């Protein structure tokens, strides 16, 4: 396929958001447009798989924003993977959101679906960005287009959540990412993502590179590294489909995807391995992995617990990048996919439980497993995948991350990953255990049943995905072959 498709694919959801806006009076048509757009987008992106696997890097420049900095889209393997996941899960989430939003009789549904499409457009823009300028434009577009979704309810709680959300994401991006980008421009004379990185010949020492790397990683607030992770729990005031797609997949994965992209194409894995510049951030990531898991254990609100679990899991991917080995990049990239399928399932389940029973807290879920067997089975499967137990896809990414850590000589990281798995068992498996093995609360009605089919079918598909990726991980290793073991 020609590279001209890249800007068209980025524009597609944004253009279709207008169609969604005018079809607001016919909800079925409106959601139909969204699903069709998502599938068309997925098909369009999939059309590039062959070329990119074969080593091509299609690139298209629209125009020059500033002398030396253009609006450029370039497709490379990790971006292709991220874009496929975002658009593929968007179609499922739209079906799910239709069930959820109507089941809970939410207001302003058209605005909701319009902003959703804009957010996806921004996510695809990030995935395809060919330089730091393009990346930064779509990064901020993603922040801003998701703000109305986070504050959807329009009450004091969502306004406060929105303040934290926007406050942290804008502060980190303008305060850290922007100066880091300008510094890169001044140091290397380029902001284009380049194979092997830009920093190698810049004469930057270990300390300078370490500082710049830290500035970039904290500037990418969407990666939710501690102590700039508070926006993610705050974003949970949004309706659950938003939490599912955006705050488990598109937004947060955009963050860690940027971390991988910066590591590979701005700093260069070899440069980081030689200078050790990424090591301080590696330890920050280990603290985030363990710290967020510990906080997750204390949360009784199901969505809050899942949010902290996401904070923890995101840092797996940051670990993969910061350990500066190609197996780490492979493991991190694969974890984008594995975590996406598992975590969106968990959020779909949380939303289905809320739609069916209006219960939000873990301690209220006792005995609900028999009323909602499909939902809680899916929850169980996705939990196992996150923990990293066969036969679930999550084992693969964890496997490569551990192998990468061993490769780079960081035995402590292997221990951290193992410990984190144990913590995952504690805070995730508690939920299906309560649902299936505890007696229901006395006030639980007998006639409770599964959420509407529009909610149940998507979560079954994503749960099945967790198993499929265990049996069939080849697409990932083929696509990510530049970093795969020979």
């Amino acid at each position, binding site marked *: 396929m020609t590279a001209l498709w890249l800007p068209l694919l980025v524009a597609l959801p944004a253009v279709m958001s207008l169609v969604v806006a005018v079809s607001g009076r016919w909800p079925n048509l409106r959601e139909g447009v969204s699903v069709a757009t998502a599938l068309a987008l997925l098909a369009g992106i999939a059309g590039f798989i062959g070329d990119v696997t074969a080593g091509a890097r299609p690139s298209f420049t629209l*125009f*020059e*924003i*500033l*002398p030396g900095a253009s*609006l450029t889209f370039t497709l490379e393997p990790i971006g292709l993977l991220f874009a496929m996941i975002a658009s593929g899960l968007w179609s499922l989430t739209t079906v799910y959101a239709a069930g959820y939003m109507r089941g809970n009789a939410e207001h302003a549904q058209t605005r909701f679906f319009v902003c959703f499409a804009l957010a996806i457009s921004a996510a695809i823009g990030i995935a395809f960005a060919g330089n730091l*300028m393009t990346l*930064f*434009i779509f*990064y*901020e*577009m993603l922040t*801003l287009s998701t703000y109305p979704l986070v*504050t959807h309810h*329009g009450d004091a709680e969502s*306004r406060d959540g929105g*303040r934290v959300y*926007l*406050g942290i994401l*804008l*502060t980190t991006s*303008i*305060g850290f990412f*922007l*100066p880091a980008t*300008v*510094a890169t*421009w*001044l140091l290397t004379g380029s902001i284009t993502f380049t194979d092997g990185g830009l920093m190698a010949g810049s004469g930057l020492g270990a300390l300078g590179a370490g500082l710049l790397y830290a500035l970039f990683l904290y500037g990418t607030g969407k990666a939710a590294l501690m102590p700039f992770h508070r926006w993610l729990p705050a974003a949970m005031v949004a309706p659950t489909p938003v939490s599912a797609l955006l705050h488990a997949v598109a937004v947060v994965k955009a963050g860690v995807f940027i971390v991988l992209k910066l590591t590979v194409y701005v700093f260069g894995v070899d440069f980081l391995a030689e200078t050790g510049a990424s090591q301080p951030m590696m330890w920050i990531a280990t603290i985030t992995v363990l710290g967020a898991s510990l906080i997750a254990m204390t949360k009784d609100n199901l969505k809050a617990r899942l949010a902290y679990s996401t904070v923890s899991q995101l840092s797996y991917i940051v670990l993969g990048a910061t350990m500066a080995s190609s197996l780490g990049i492979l493991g991190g990239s694969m974890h984008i996919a594995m975590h996406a399928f598992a975590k969106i399932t968990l959020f779909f389940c949380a939303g289905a439980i809320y739609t069916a029973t209006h219960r939000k807290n873990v301690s209220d879920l006792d005995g609900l497993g028999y009323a909602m067997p499909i939902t809680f089975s899916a929850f169980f499967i996705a939990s196992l995948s996150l923990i990293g137990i066969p036969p679930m896809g999550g084992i693969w990414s964890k496997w490569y991350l551990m192998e990468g850590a061993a490769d780079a000589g960081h035995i402590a990281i292997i221990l951290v990953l193992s410990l984190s798995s144990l913590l995952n068992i504690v805070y995730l498996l508690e939920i299906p255990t309560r649902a299936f093995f505890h007696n229901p609360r006395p006030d639980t009605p007998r006639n409770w049943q599964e959420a509407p089919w529009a909610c149940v079918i998507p979560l079954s598909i994503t749960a099945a995905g967790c198993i499929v990726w265990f049996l069939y991980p080849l697409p990932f290793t083929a696509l990510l072959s530049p970093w795969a073991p020979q």
Partner: protein
Amino acid sequence: MITQFLSQMPVLLVVLPLLAAPVCVIVHRAAPSWFIYALTSWACFAIAFLLFVQVRIGGPISYVLGGWPPPFGIELRLDALNMLVVLLVTGIAAIASIYARASIAAEIPRERAYLFYAALLLCLCGLLGISITGDAFNLFVFLEISSLSSYSLIAMGAKRRALLSAFQYLIMGTIGGTFLLIGIGFLYMMTGSLNMADIADRLPAVSDTRTVEAGLAFIVIGLSLKFALFPLHIWLPNAYTYAPSAVSAFIAATATKVAVYALIRFLFTVFGAAYAFGQLPLGEVLMVLAVVAMLSGSVAAIFQTDVKRLLAWSSVAQMGYIVLGLSMASATGLTAALAHIVNHGIIKGALFMVAGALFWRMRAISINDVAGLGRRMPLTAAAFVVAGLALIGVPATGGFISKWLLLEAVMEDAHYGLAAAILVSSLLSVIYIGRVVEALYFRDPADNDGKTAEAPVSMVAATWVLVGASVALGLYASPLVETAERAAAGLLGSGA
């Protein structure tokens, strides 16, 4: 015929508005005066555009007024630098003409509207004159024309406080004008010339004298008063708050920018960067004041309850960015300052236009008054959001380009503290813009008639033209940045 017209274009920029103003007074009625103003401003905009292209292709133009050759006669001199400013001023004036009709009809008694348009034309004439003249004394004259007319424009505000604000501005403005005149007098004393290029030629021989140093100080302070550099800014919040909405938009977008232009012209063309920033420590002085302005203006804006006053304080902060850029006296710094003159002019013009549209609807403009208008006036409120994002410096807006260039300039010289100050000030602007946006969208309206009532189409359209321009300049900034780069190179080349 055509070539004659083309060769007379520079002077038409000044003559057209100057002659149109008394015509407004003669016709004495609101609608025709508005029409004359609109026609004149669009004509000036067209002429400015033609001249811009001419300068872009053929290089600087020198126009000799009345056939008296410089340095004896008055010379109009057009180069990349002032054509940028002229384009901004005429463009804002033209778009303001679309906006002003409905806005002024609501805010100024019908029988006095003709005086308003006459004063606005004089103000335009003064601002354009400052921008294109090559003569130092002539610059002072035009500055006075623009100042006197803007005092009367501000005094026409609906509230009685407008009179007091205009008086305050008059006192400060007159001091500023006098200082400028004294400074120019000193230069004339030492060089015997008033033509800027001629003074620049003669200055090096006498530049070590106390008289020239004092002249520089007087000129810098006088002009700083006019563009409200901290701590000479106290007139600005009141003036912008109480002026009629269309005047706030026009003056905020143009008057302070033209005064900064005049400072750049004096420092770089007349005195030369080597003298002002090398021999004298002007760079350090301006840098400190700029940083204080950026931070204190933003902090003050956070605590305002009146939307127009909030925007006015934000202007104090934004002028800090421009002065910071020029205080670096480097090519990148000057480019950033010039780009921000244009970008901020457009953005702040758009924001004050939104404030005027909100005022049109509510007859009041405190944050409580505009609460909940996001649903009633969706287009106006959305314009505030986009222009607010541009002010913050979110990518894909003009404000981002300015900030990018400014960061590049300060980091190039390894002033990392300044980079931090720029970023902190940007983040403070998130807070004050956020306060208004939250009021617009998250709070319930003060009265509950519940009807949707957008501002008149003309006001909304004019606002969105500026908002669109800001986004366009953020996405496709190359032409602006290249022009600013060329202007900066010209300034540093001639000053070295």
